[in-house]
């Protein structure tokens, strides 16, 4: 017992890490499902719907497949690097989540303050960028070590592309940093919590401040998409040109690692977008509207009811059983949050609730783009990065600094 109390911090941190890992991986899994569904509907298809109702169990099936497939290592690869690359990619991607704060104030568990982040370094943003910067190696080395031409091309592309877009990525947040006057993500969010006329979303960096960071957000988001090698910047894995790009030679779980890494970094980027430009966990409504505390339940209950209704009409028995159950669970949680004894939880989940909401929006945008946009040509990519994004973000920096100076001068 005293061991626990002695090393409480470490233990709590470990638990948090494990929890976060679990959540992130699950979210990853269901992100794939979500993506496939959305894209499918955009292309007026059904998408996965065999495994489980609405294909809800598809991710599990995929996971199992990844685990059980044969792990073929091509001949003539540089073994060490070949194994290192996916580890690097996944490790870095997961690490980057660690510095993201999910909520403002700690939750008290067994008399311990449990903060909603794993680490809160004073230079959090820089740490994130550092990790992103190292992320290149995963792709580049994978491409090189495969000892095969398509991956090599993919690796080359990715390294060039990432170097090019990192500049814009880093420069585009300078405006935010200037306004928050800090590298620390928590402080950046708190800096946005003083909206005009108390209307929440007016305090967000994208709308408020001496100089609304619309340009900055544009550059950041585009550059971030490029950094995560997603459509329309997915040249490293341009399946129509390079088979599968840098991970052509990777199979089964190593491939899965790249896969997970990509989706994790998507989540990270979404978090960053919402934290840097959309006020993180701050609610968009005026603080005076207390009823917003009940929004979670107000969303959960109808959703649950709808799922029940939908489940009843579902074809398969399986679905007829599972979906209503899920629905009732949602509904019950929602109701429970409304009950007086449990209302205090609302206070705790406000922050995470809004943050996750925003993250979801951005993830949807990701998927949306994939569903709509064509891929860039390589020269277009470079020209876009160097001739548009970089100058624009520099202009943004200058303007922001200028307006801050204006304001600071009485």
């Amino acid at each position, binding site marked *: 017992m005293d061991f626990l109390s002695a090393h409480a911090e470490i233990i709590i941190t470990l638990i948090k890490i494990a929890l976060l890992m679990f959540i992130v991986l699950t979210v990853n899994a269901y992100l794939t499902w979500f993506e496939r569904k959305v894209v499918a509907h955009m292309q007026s298809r059904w998408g996965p719907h065999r495994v489980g109702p609405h294909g809800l169990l598809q991710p599990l099936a995929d996971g199992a497949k990844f685990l059980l497939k044969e792990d073929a290592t091509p001949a003539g690869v540089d073994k060490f690097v070949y194994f290192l690359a996916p580890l690097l990619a996944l490790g870095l991607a997961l690490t980057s989540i660690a510095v993201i704060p999910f909520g403002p104030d700690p939750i008290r568990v067994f008399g311990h303050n449990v903060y909603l982040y794993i680490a809160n370094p004073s230079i959090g943003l820089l740490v994130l960028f*550092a990790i992103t910067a190292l992320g290149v190696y995963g792709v580049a080395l994978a491409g090189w070590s495969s000892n095969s031409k398509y991956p090599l091309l993919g690796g080359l592309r990715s390294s060039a592309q990432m170097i090019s877009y990192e500049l814009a990525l880093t420069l585009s947040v300078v405006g935010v940093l200037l306004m928050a006057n800090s590298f620390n993500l928590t402080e950046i969010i708190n800096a946005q919590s003083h909206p005009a006329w108390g209307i929440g979303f007016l305090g967000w960096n994208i709308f408020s401040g001496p100089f609304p960071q619309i340009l900055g957000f544009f550059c950041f988001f585009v550059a971030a998409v490029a950094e995560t090698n997603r459509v329309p910047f997915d040249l490293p894995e341009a399946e129509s040109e390079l088979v599968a790009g840098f991970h052509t030679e990777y199979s089964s779980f190593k491939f899965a690692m790249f896969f997970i890494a990509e989706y994790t970094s998507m989540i990270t980027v979404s978090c960053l977008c919402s934290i840097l430009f959309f006020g993180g966990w701050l609610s968009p409504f005026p603080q005076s509207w207390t009823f917003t505390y009940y929004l979670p339940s107000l969303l959960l209950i109808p959703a649950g009811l709808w799922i029940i209704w939908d489940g009843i009409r579902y074809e398969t028995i399986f679905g007829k059983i599972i979906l209503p159950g899920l629905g009732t669970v949602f509904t019950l949680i929602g109701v429970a949050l409304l009950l007086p004894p449990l209302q205090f939880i609302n206070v705790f989940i406000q922050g995470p609730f809004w943050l996750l909401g925003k993250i979801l929006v951005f993830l949807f945008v990701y998927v949306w783009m994939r569903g709509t946009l064509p891929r860039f040509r390589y020269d277009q990519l470079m020209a876009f990065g160097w001739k548009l994004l970089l100058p624009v973000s520099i202009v943004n920096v200058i303007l922001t600094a200028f307006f801050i100076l204006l304001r600071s001068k009485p």
Partner: protein
Amino acid sequence: MNAPLVVFFVLAVLAVAGALSLIFQKHPIHSALSLIVVMVALAGLYLLMGAEFVAAVQIIVYGGAIMVLFVFVIMLLNAGLEEHTNISKLAGFPGILLALALTGFIGATVARSAGLTQVTSGNGNISGALSATRELSTMIFKNFAYPFELTSFLILIAILGAIVLAHREN
């Protein structure tokens, strides 16, 4: 044997190992990787010394830009294993000897001057890391404004030079 010391030794060993493997790896990519290891280890040491910003920059610029550039070039030129020619007599045994001698010199200098540096060891009054970062920025943009601008020019020239060099004229 307190915690920082442990961390230091771990990182130091890491760095030296990286440097050694940089020397003894046959393939440039491996050398590059080992150099990256060294750099990350150094970044850790900077963190240990409370120079958070420098650490971050070390990883972002060195790890994320320069070394990527190296890897990129290696991949681009498809550099193979290093061939072991010994055309230069001087660079053979005597060269290595001389290099060791230089190391010895520096080491001796450090050892002899140990006392002088030890006097103020560790009582660096760099207050909290963030404010340190702030001070750093103040220094760069106030005290070192002129050199800073010069470096920006240097970068510009370097960019132009790189373009001119890599531009295949035909």
